[in-house]
C-alpha cells in the first residue's frame, strides 16, 4: 500500500508543526483558568514530560509509517518532531528548576542524586542536546555518515525516557508500561529481517 496525495504532502508538515506547538497555549490557558488540578506545578511537569515522550514516540514512528505504508511526508516531519520533543524536555526542566525548586540549586542537586528517576531524566535530556543541535544546518551535511550514526542515539534515549517514566510512578500505575511496549514494538520493527518482511514488496529504501 502506498499513500500518495499531493495536497496531503503539502499540508501534512504544516499541520504537524501547528499540532506540536498547540500544547503550549493549551498549557497556558489551563494554567490561567485554574484547570491544572490542585497541584498545578506537578500537573505542568507531568504534562510537558508526557508530551515530550509522545513526540519522541512519534519521531520513531515516522520511518515505519513510511516503510509500511509508503507515506513519504512522515519522513519530512521526523526531524522536527524530535526537535519539538526537545523543546518540551526544556520546558519540563525549566518548570522543575523554577516553579518546583525555586532555583534552589543545592536542593536540586541533592534531589537529583536521591531520585533515580530524576537522574535518569536528566541524563536523557542531556543526551538529547547533541541530537537537537545537529538536527539543524550545517550539521547534517558536515557530519555526513556520522550524522545518522549519532542520531541512532535516539533508540537509547527513548528507552531511558520510558524508564524515567516507569521509575517515577507508584506501583500499580500501568500507563508507563504501555509506553514501554509501544517503544519496544517500534524498535523491534527496525530489526532488518522484520523490517524487510513488513515493507514487503514495496522495497523502499529505509
Amino acid at each position, binding site marked *: 500500500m502506498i499513500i500518495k496525495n499531493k495536497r496531503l504532502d503539502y499540508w501534512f508538515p504544516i499541520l504537524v508543526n501547528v499540532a506540536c506547538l498547540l500544547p503550549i497555549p493549551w498549557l497556558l490557558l489551563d*494554567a*490561567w483558568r485554574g484547570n491544572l*488540578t*490542585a497541584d498545578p506545578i*506537578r500537573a*505542568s511537569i507531568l504534562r510537558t514530560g508526557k508530551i515530550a515522550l509522545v513526540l519522541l514516540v512519534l519521531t520513531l514512528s515516522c520511518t515505519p509509517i513510511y516503510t509500511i505504508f509508503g507515506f513519504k511526508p512522515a519522513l519530512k516531519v521526523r526531524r522536527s518532531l524530535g526537535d519539538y520533543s526537545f523543546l518540551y524536555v526544556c520546558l519540563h526542566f*525549566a518548570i522543575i528548576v*523554577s516553579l518546583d525548586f525555586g532555583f534552589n540549586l543545592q536542593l536540586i542537586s541533592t534531589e537529583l542524586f*536521591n531520585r533515580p528517576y530524576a537522574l535518569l531524566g536528566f541524563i536523557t535530556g542531556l543526551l538529547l542536546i547533541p541530537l537537537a543541535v545537529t538536527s539543524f544546518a550545517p550539521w547534517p551535511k558536515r557530519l555526513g555518515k556520522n550524522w545518522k550514526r549519532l542520531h541512532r542515539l535516539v533508540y537509547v534515549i527513548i528507552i531511558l525516557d520510558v524508564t524515567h517514566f516507569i521509575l517515577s510512578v507508584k506501583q500499580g500505575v*500501568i500507563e508507563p508500561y504501555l509506553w514501554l511496549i509501544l517503544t519496544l514494538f517500534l524498535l523491534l520493527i527496525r530489526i532488518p529481517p522484520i523490517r524487510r518482511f513488513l515493507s514487503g514488496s514495496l522495497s523502499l529504501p529505509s
Partner: protein
Amino acid sequence: MIKIDPSEITPKRLYLSRRQFIGSSGAVVAAALALAACKGNLPTSEAALTPVAGITPQASTSTDELGDPLTSFEDITHYNNYYEFSTNKEAVAKLAADFPTSPWSIEVSGLVNNPRTYLIESLQKFEAEERIYRLRCVEGWSMVIPWSGFPLHKLLDEVQPTPQAKYVQFTAINDPKTMPLQGSASLSWPYVEGLRLDEAMHDLTILATGLYGQPLPKQDGAPIRLVVPWKYGFKSIKAIVKIELVDYQPVTLWMQAAPDEYGFYSNVNPNVDHPRWSQATERRIGEVGRRNTLMFNGYEKEVAPLYAGMDLNKDF
C-alpha cells in the same frame, strides 16, 4: 463547632487569589519558555473556604496549629489518591459519585472481649470532634485538612482488646462492581492497613466521618476512614468495613506490592528516603515551591515516644 457565615469567610478577593496565583504560574511558564530568568518565590495562595456546589465548608479556624492555612475544600475533594477508583487523582471525585455508602456496617473482631458489628449510624454515639491535621502523601505533596471524627481508642475501649492483641488490622470494602480498579490484578484488593496497638490507641489517631463540617465526601473515604496524621497518607485507609485485633503484624496492601518501598510503619520522616525519591521536602497544595518535611509530619512531640529505641531506617 462555631458556625461561620460564608460571606464572612469568603471575601471575593481571597476567593480569586487562587486563580491569580495560578495565573502567575502560567506567566512563569511563559517566562521559562522564553528561557528568560524568572522570579522563583511567588506569593503563596491563601486557603479559600469557597462554597462548592451548594456546600459551605465550615471550620472553626483557618490555620493549623503551626499557622499554615487550611487547604481548600475544592482541592481536598478533587485531588484524591484512591486507587480503587483510579490512579488519576482528578478522576476520583467523579468515579466515586455513585459509590454506595449506605447501608454500612463495621465489624470489630479478633482478639477482643466484646466483638461487635456497628451500623455506621450507631457510631454517632462517639461524639465527633474537629481535628485539623496535616496530611503528607508519600508522593511528596501535603494538605491541611479539618477532619471531623472521633479517636479510635474510644471504639477500641468499648470492644476491649485482650492482652494477646498487639496489632490492629483494617480492611476496606471489596466492591469491584462500583470500584473499577479493584478488578485489575496489579494490586491485591481489598485495601488492608495496620497499626501497632499503641499507635491505634494514641489520641491523634481518629476515625473520620467528615471534613470541613460536612459528611465525609465519597472520594475522601466515606463513610468512615482512618486518619493517622504522623504517617504517610496511604496508611489512612478509606471506606473501612472491618477492624480486627490480631497478635501478628498485618501485611498491608502496599507492603505486599513493594516491601522495599513501603514499610509497615511508614512514619513521615524527612531523613528516610523512598527508594525512588527523597522525602526531605514536600509541596503544600496551593503553594508554589517546596517546604521542608517535618519529622513525624510535625507531630514529633506527641508520637516520638512510641518509637523510642527503634531504628527508623530499618523500621521505615
